[in-house]
């Protein structure tokens, strides 16, 4: 393998993989928008449908992304806020927040009625709680229903911790995760109210 052969090999392989890398980046840029839409539509929409009602737009398209904090590694944490409109007027706002659960983060999608700023309902999106214990709690109407109708500034801690929510018996950790998620969600809402209602 003469030196010239090796050189041509290096050049060809480097150039071809570089060009392919660049081409793929371009394709990625084109499809990024659509992929994000699809992701949200397929994962978040079920939860959105459960908590939002009476809207005539597609909340998945009317959405904005806010940088709502930094995680441990310093990367921005983004929260997507979905708008439910009726006749062009925003009637409710939905977004997702996370609370530490038994097996990992529990994602809770919550909807806040506008303008009276009352919690319109919550639904679990992503969680890896033990299905038979935590999973049941996060789907039981009587536990999840307690949040509906409460005002944004209420104390959402568990009744054992002085709050107004009684935990689902036997799944205290998961119910606590849900309350933590809602509490952090409310803080985000209050902190970024101006941008959200902008």
């Amino acid at each position, binding site marked *: 393998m003469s030196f010239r052969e090796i050189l*041509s090999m290096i050049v*060809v*392989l480097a150039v071809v993989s570089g060009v*392919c890398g660049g081409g793929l980046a371009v394709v990625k840029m084109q*499809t990024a928008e659509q*992929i994000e839409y699809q992701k949200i539509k397929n994962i978040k929409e079920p939860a959105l449908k459960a908590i939002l009602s009476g809207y005539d737009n597609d909340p998945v398209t009317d959405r904005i992304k806010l940088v709502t904090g930094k995680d441990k590694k310093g990367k921005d944490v983004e929260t997507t806020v979905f708008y439910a409109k009726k006749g062009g007027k925003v009637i409710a706002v939905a977004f997702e927040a996370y609370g530490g659960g038994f097996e990992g983060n529990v994602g809770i999608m919550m909807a806040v009625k506008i303008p009276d700023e009352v919690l319109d309902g919550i639904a679990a999106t992503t969680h890896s709680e033990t299905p038979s214990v935590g999973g049941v709690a996060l789907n039981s109407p009587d536990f999840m229903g307690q949040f509906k109708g409460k005002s944004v500034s209420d104390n959402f801690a568990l009744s054992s911790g002085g709050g107004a929510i009684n935990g689902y018996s036997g799944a205290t950790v998961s119910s606590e995760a849900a309350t933590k998620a809602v509490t952090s969600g409310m803080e985000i809402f209050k902190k970024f109210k101006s941008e959200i209602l902008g």
Partner: protein
Amino acid sequence: MSRIVEEFTKGLWKEIPPFRFVLGLCSVLAVTTSVESAVGLGGGVVFVLIMSNVLVSLLRKIIPDKVRIAVFIVIIASGVIIVELAMQAYFYGLFQVLGIWIPLIVVNCLVLGRAEAFARKESVVLALVDALGMGIGFTMSLTVLASLREIIGVGTWFGISVMPEWYLGFPYIIKPAGAFVCLGGILAIMNVVSARLDAKKREAEAA
């Protein structure tokens, strides 16, 4: 012109992957539990096959022989990523169903096999036609295998139930073990057909 037709039809019967030209079995066995995913994967493979064959035969003069396998693989991998992104963007349901089997098209022996054995030596038009023939052949056989397995296994076809109510389905064939036996069975039937064809050909030759 006849060469083009011949290259195209060979992918449809004489060397139809994966039955006669046994390549690319990994995805065939795994994906043919339902016709929808089989057609989805078949479509992906056709696109990658066409793109890789055309690009390979375009670049065949300038690729140094020592590194040609790596360059072919880079081209095929880019084709696969484009398919993956497109599927994620427009057919998200299918993307979730196929899961890991889309990136695995890159190691599908059929695609690299065609690039190595055919596209490297032929002109662009022939490479395109060969890719089309092979791709459609592959998708057709995937669909046949998938419908067989779905109808026998679950009693539905493309999700529509086609079997009478009393048919409870035969889940063995949907399971991994059933895939092997089902493909083995089809290969055996193909052998019978081709053995008979060869026997006739030999008589014709001998006479």
